[in-house]
């Protein structure tokens, strides 16, 4: 427990002295985005002037439904094309890269609608996450001795992650037989197989039963404690306030506020734009998931 506290305060230290204003600079940003804009027809879904994400923190991205959170995720990770804007990851410009290239550069994302590969085993799901596999090249695939060792090492790593995410006894089951919460866990574990520096989770807690929420939270915290950066979208205010080092509020595509949980709680604009509508939305959201 004590080690947890030191790392939490460590993460908070890194945010010390950062002003809670939209677009504020961070001491050691891993992700820096400038003028990122995307519109669908006449609707401007995302219009972010400037956004930095501090390395090694848990940053929450919140905002009402339709605020553009998922669209921003899609843009940053190369799953959608921007109208304009540029962004860099770990000092390297990555705008214009396609989804798989972004993932290879160390920024991995999950999806709001879980994408477990249902007709594949849990273990195969995991192994897909491993990078630079010799056996994934068509010619290399036919030469089994060329990849058998690597496969064994990857399997070992996958087993360790499955153990950590309490899915080890499910390893031979089809992913489609898992519960919604287990699929979220699997998706998170699978993305860790890529050994990412930054992990972006789109509503990792949606539709997950309360018993699993606690364990998911624990996993997210431990990602940060391993030195990874977490950016996640979530609706549940208790969750957000509980584990975030920093919160970014999006409304109608714009960053309207950012700051520590305590700053956000008292921000008048946020309360108007978002927190006021929180109750209704939570209920509506639950209806959708059920």
């Amino acid at each position, binding site marked *: 427990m004590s080690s947890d506290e030191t790392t939490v305060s460590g993460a908070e230290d890194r945010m010390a002295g950062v002003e809670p204003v939209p677009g504020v600079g961070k001491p050691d940003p891993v992700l820096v985005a400038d003028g990122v804009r995307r519109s669908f027809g006449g609707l401007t879904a995302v219009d972010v002037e400037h956004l930095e994400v501090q390395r090694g923190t848990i940053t929450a991205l919140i905002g009402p439904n339709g605020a553009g959170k998922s669209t921003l995720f899609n843009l940053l990770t190369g799953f959608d094309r921007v109208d304009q804007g540029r962004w860099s990851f770990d000092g390297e410009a990555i705008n214009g890269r396609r*989804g*798989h290239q972004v993932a290879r550069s160390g920024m991995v994302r999950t999806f709001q609608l879980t994408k477990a*590969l*249902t007709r594949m085993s849990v273990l*195969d799901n995991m192994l897909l996450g491993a*990078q630079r596999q010799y056996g994934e090249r068509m010619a290399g695939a036919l030469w089994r001795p060329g990849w058998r060792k690597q*496969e064994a090492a990857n399997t070992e790593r996958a087993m360790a992650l499955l153990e950590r995410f309490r899915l080890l006894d499910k390893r031979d089951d089809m992913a489609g037989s898992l519960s919604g919460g287990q699929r979220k866990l699997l998706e998170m574990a*699978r993305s860790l197989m890529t050994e990412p520096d930054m992990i972006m989770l789109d509503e990792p807690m949606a539709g997950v039963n309360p018993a699993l929420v606690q364990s998911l939270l624990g996993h997210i915290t431990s990602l940060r404690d391993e030195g990874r950066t977490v950016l996640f979208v979530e609706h549940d205010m208790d969750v957000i306030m509980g584990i975030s080092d920093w919160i970014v509020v999006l409304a109608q595509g714009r960053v309207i506020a950012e700051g520590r949980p305590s700053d956000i709680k008292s921000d008048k604009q946020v309360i108007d734009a978002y927190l006021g509508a929180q109750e209704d939305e939570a209920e509506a959201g639950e209806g959708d998931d059920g």
Partner: protein
Amino acid sequence: MDILTILAESARSAVGPVAAIYALAAVGLNLHFGYTGLLNFGQVGFMLVGAYGVGISVGVYGLPVLVGFAVSLACAVVLALLLGIPTLRLRSDYLAISTIATAEVLRYVYRAGFAEPLTNGVYGLQNLSAGFRSINPFESAERYGFGVFNFSGNHLWVMVATWSLVGLFALLTWMLMHSPWGRVIKGIREDEDAVRSLGKNVFAYKMQVLVLGGVIGALAGGMMAVHQAAINPDQFKPQVSFFLWAILLLGGAGRVLGPLIGSVVFWFLMNFTDGLLRALGSEGYLPFLSGPDFGAIQLAFVGLLLVLLIVFRPQGLIGDRKEMLINVK
């Protein structure tokens, strides 16, 4: 004609050259659709460029048959790239529409007047099997086999060559699908965005599969040319693609042996219905039907077979029902 003769004759053709050629083309389609989920409704287009690759090389330029096959494969690669580059980044239905349209356009191009110097238009090409038969290890005039299962040396040679290719590519399929490469392919079938988010170049994988499956289809087309010794564009109508789909779904998509079993059973049933209709017709039991109607009834039968299959056995004869029933949502 008695029923036993019809059964025996149907069984004979179920392992014959035609069944082998369709099995080979279906092995390619199995890679496309069965494993990767690529909707290729124009596998006949690959067979067409394959058949004409051999046909034009051998029949027009008098080149050795192996050169003809090399030309076939090259044409298939080009066709796959032309189909794949614009469509494989888009939603899967774009490939479906492009393949069915392209295959049909190809048929019209190959039969068109301006292509006549090469393809001889609607008359097609003849005398294509001399080279292939010159390396026939069997005696061409002799009959081989036992009982009703007897084939001429020429047919036997096509059968041996084609079934060997079927075996070879089925083995290749097995090896590929039991490797990390195959895992990526199956992942793409399930959800390509998930695979992309794990750092795999989905487009490149789909392209590889489209090329490989197309090349196998072209080989089947090449075998068709040397088997029949004559080809013409109208043999490559869309119904060939649909037969291949029926074969694949019948045998079991995404199963290594699905195309083999599918083709054998399919051609058994086709020949059996044909034989039965003819026998009944000649006995006067079908007064309202004449010879040409039998073909139409046969096609209706294929349609019925597909519907029944999808309703009662969506996984095919050797498919895995458990895998089919997994909640995909």
